[in-house]
């Protein structure tokens, strides 16, 4: 890793961790959501450093963009202040979450220590075959061409459903 790359890595990683702490410690769910966006956008930077351009773009577009906007929208629509029970914790939630996070961390450290090649190896193979985006595009338009096309009817059905279920009663007398 070059010096610049390491600096970028450490800065992005630090911001991502800060964002993560913000998600669990913020009082208002709105700030939690915004912190999560911060974390996700920094993870995208880390993906870029790994040469996974497509995943980086998807991370921004789908997670930080679409999914989190939906989250914030729902939080804003519900008006969280009206639901005081949302702030309450389950009994024993704090120690349990610390324990689970520790197990996850131990698992990741164990996995990396066991076979460090598992991370770096894949990296170079992808780069050799022309970069992440090209490999992905090739797969998308050959092997996975048909499943990709099939998402079109899926989206149409979802749209019909959204219209059919959310329309007011007045409009449905023309059956």
């Amino acid at each position: 890793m070059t010096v610049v790359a390491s600096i970028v890595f450490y800065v992005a990683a630090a911001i991502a961790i800060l964002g993560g702490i913000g998600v669990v410690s913020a009082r208002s769910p709105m700030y939690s959501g915004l912190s999560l966006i911060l974390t996700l956008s920094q993870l995208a930077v880390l993906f870029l450093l790994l040469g996974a351009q497509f995943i980086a773009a998807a991370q921004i577009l789908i997670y930080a963009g679409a999914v989190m906007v939906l989250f914030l929208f729902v939080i804003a629509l519900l008006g969280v202040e009206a639901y005081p029970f949302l702030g309450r914790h389950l009994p024993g939630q704090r120690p349990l979450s610390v324990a689970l996070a520790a197990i996850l961390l131990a698992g990741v450290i164990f996995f990396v220590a066991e076979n460090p090649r598992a991370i770096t190896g894949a990296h170079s193979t992808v780069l050799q075959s022309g970069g992440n985006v090209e490999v992905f595009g090739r797969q998308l338009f050959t092997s996975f061409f048909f499943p990709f096309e099939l998402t079109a009817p899926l989206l149409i059905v979802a749209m019909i459903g959204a219209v059919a279920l959310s329309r007011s009663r007045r409009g449905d007398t023309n059956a």
Partner: protein
Amino acid sequence: MIVAVIHINVTLADWGSVLPELIIAGGMLLLMLVDVFVPGKKVNLTTWLTLIILALAFAASWNLWRTGGMASALYGTVTSDRFAMFFDFSILISAALAVLISPGYISTSAFDSGEYYALILGAVLGMMLMAAGLSLMVLFIALELLSLALYILSGFERFRPRSQEAGFKYFLLSSFASAFLLYGFALLYGVTGSTSLIKISTCLAGHAHGCSAAATSSPLLYIGIGLMLVGFAFKVSIVPFHMWTPDVYEGAPTPVTAFMSVATKAALFAAFIRVFSMSLSTVESHWYGALWALAIATMVVGNIAALAQSNMKRLLAYSGIAHAGYILVAMAANNALGQSAVAFYFLAYTFMNIGAFVFVAYLETTGRAGDEIASYRGIFYRNPALALPMAIFMFSLAGFPPTAGFFAKYVAFQAAVQAGHVDLVVVGVITSLVSVVYYLRVVAVMFLQPAEEAAPVEQPVPPEQPPAVEQVPASAEPVTRPQLPWNIDVGIWTAALGSIVLGIIPTGLLTYASESVTAVRALFGLP
């Protein structure tokens, strides 16, 4: 500058092998356009259009059956083998019967007919792809397609709380099951390195390079199989993943319940067989035990719970659970006969189960509480043309000879005996005897003398507008023997005829079923 050229290697023959699916997808769009651009009442128009689209898809499927289809098309993601086509027949017939009985329901519940039929076609598309998918990706997207359409259809009567509850419950629980299935798929992909069912089977059989030698004993494979089993079991309502079934069947609009009780199960079982009995056949020892236990639990719980039901739709839900148990017995046999038995079972089940729902749907649209069994008292004397076919369906579901139900069950149990699973067959026969009690109770109620305080003869449904029928003179109102609307007539007698004919001369269709299984087994290199 890098110039990347991707050659998409898709020929006309590839598209030809998904022609039935393309017809359905095009039909879905057409119905949406008709809905927008044709003014006024269009229940008749959309109903006929949907029936024509289904008939065209059936013809295309039949043509693919005749020519044998393509073993694998579109980069090996789908197939048009005879196995897929055989299940397509069940799916299309049940969709057509459900559409046939929908107009009455649409009028009384003020549905938007274009959207309703477009969603039905969307579900059919998902189901046909489920039966034809050769790749985990296609299977998952097809599953989402059919599930999404069915969630919406279950809650389509959105101002009736029961329907809302059904749609919402189905959505929450079923999307959870989808997640299980997807996790299982992901682990299976992780172990074998491929999403293609055929490549997965060659990997697990031990002859494929780039595939870990330890794949068959990997703990991830066990976990993946377990998760997939949960997902499939939920979607076909196998005990203990059946809790949603009675509530959803009861709350959903009856034509939708009729359709999904048969076609969803047919599609899911086709994929279930393709994934487990074909792709994972070399590791049968990993999953046979679980399948055995599920089959026993499903037959016992389904039949015993059905005894206590007083609502016809709930009774049919538990009866559907019990039948899933018998089908599981045939699948657990894991031989060619067992798989043919599953295929044949669904064709028989299409007629007898949808027939029973036609009966319920008609009584509901007459405005009386149509799904309480107690309200069927003496219906034979008021309306024999309705009660007689219903009796046939009940006998067939209970498995009396010479009906389709008897023969389907017979072949299923025969396959299990052939595979040496006598224990499953013993439980199956005993629970079938239990089932006779609740099926015959329905018949007995219909043939009882009507109670004195019973309401007068039911009205011949003024709001009912069967498609394109000549206006029945409304002046002849107080008929003593109510005339059935022609669409109910056609639906109920087609189903009755199917239930009888498949029982008297089953050999022809059984040959077709075993031909279809031969095709799919050859695809996976099984004898």
